[in-house]
């Protein structure tokens, strides 16, 4: 047995493992002073290593660690919750923006650009008929405009007749009939207020229709 083999076996013996050739190792140790001294030194070293002082734990170390761990957990949970909230808010914001864009961007911007008509041999494709959903508001708008024009025309006729009505000048004024004055004033005030609300709502409705209805196509405008 040489010194190298001896060292390996020595380590096994020092670690308390079973060695294959204990007699050969002992024989080598009795012959080789270097290995003998090393073995003795290592045995002493390991014996002293067992006596190495155990570092004393700080007071309340476990409690401090638990406190820190719990605080860390809470902090991480809060962070996670905040992250989820921010992500949800962002998603909702983006969704709202998309909805708003879909709702308010003019329809003609969403349509493909009009290509100039160039002479070609190709048979022109038939225009697709407007869908019922698209036609419906258009018809409603047209009938509304027609009715408005009729009403205005009728009103104009009445006003015109009234202008040339001579008896108007002969009618007594409200001031000349003091008994009627407060009642008529109140009635006129009420009518004014009532009409104002109606006109306001009508204007709003008209604005809404004007904004929301799709712009008539060029071909239809001409018609």
């Amino acid at each position, binding site marked *: 047995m040489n010194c190298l083999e001896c060292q390996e076996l020595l380590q096994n013996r020092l670690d308390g493992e079973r060695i294959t050739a204990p007699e050969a190792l002992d024989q080598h140790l009795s012959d080789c002073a270097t290995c003998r001294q090393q073995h003795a030194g*290592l045995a*002493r070293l390991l014996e*002293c*290593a067992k006596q190495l*002082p155990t570092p*004393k734990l*700080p007071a309340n*170390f476990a409690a401090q660690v*638990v406190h*820190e761990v719990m605080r860390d957990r809470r902090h991480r949970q809060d962070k996670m919750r905040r992250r989820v909230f921010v992500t949800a808010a962002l998603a909702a914001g983006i969704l709202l923006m998309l909805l708003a864009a879909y709702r308010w961007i003019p329809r003609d911007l969403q349509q493909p650009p009009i290509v100039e008509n160039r002479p070609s041999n190709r048979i022109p494709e038939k225009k697709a008929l407007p869908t019922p959903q698209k036609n419906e508001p258009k018809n409603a708008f047209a009938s509304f405009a027609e009715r408005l024009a009729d009403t205005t025309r009728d009103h104009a006729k009445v006003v015109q007749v009234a202008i040339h009505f001579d008896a108007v000048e002969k009618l007594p004024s409200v001031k000349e009939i003091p008994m009627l004055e407060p009642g008529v004033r109140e009635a006129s005030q009420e009518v004014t207020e009532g009409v104002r609300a109606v006109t306001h709502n009508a204007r709003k409705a008209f604005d809404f229709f004007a904004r929301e209805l799709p712009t008539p196509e060029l071909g239809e405008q001409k018609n």
Partner: protein
Amino acid sequence: MSAEDAILVRRCLKGDEAAIQGLVERYQSDVFGLCMRLLHHRQDAEDVAQEVFLRVFRSLNRWDASRPFKPWVMGITVNRCRTWLTQRAKRPELVDYLHETASTRPADDSKELVQEIQAALHELRWEYRSVFVMYHERGLPYEDIADAIEKPVGTVKTWLHRARLVVLERLRRRGMLSEVEHELP
């Protein structure tokens, strides 16, 4: 891994504070002892030990239950200590060095030798020191040390043998083992 560890880990994952306390108390001595020996500074050891436990509990759900728990914790400890030492090397040197407070005092005749071993340990290479401390102080078997430092068992054995020889050589140079004679078993 013992069944007790498995139960504690499961309860910790559910957020049971008592289980966390139990797990810390179970491993605090090993973790703090290793930190103390590797860092050679009490305050640093406290800080790193606390950080080790924070990391252990943060990554508890990533722990492979088929592996033993203690080597996993010791592996995290060794890695944190190494990182801390790297960071400390970049900072100005700390003066407050090793306030060793022993809970178990060595016998009087070997007290000087034990102190010399401690001093020798701090001169060892990082790998040798961690293996020496885990084997001799914390009593981990070769397999667990290999698991902790993610090296083969053969490497652990070699490092431990070299660590012993370096310490022995220092003790000899200091005249601590000149009179030792071999006694055949």
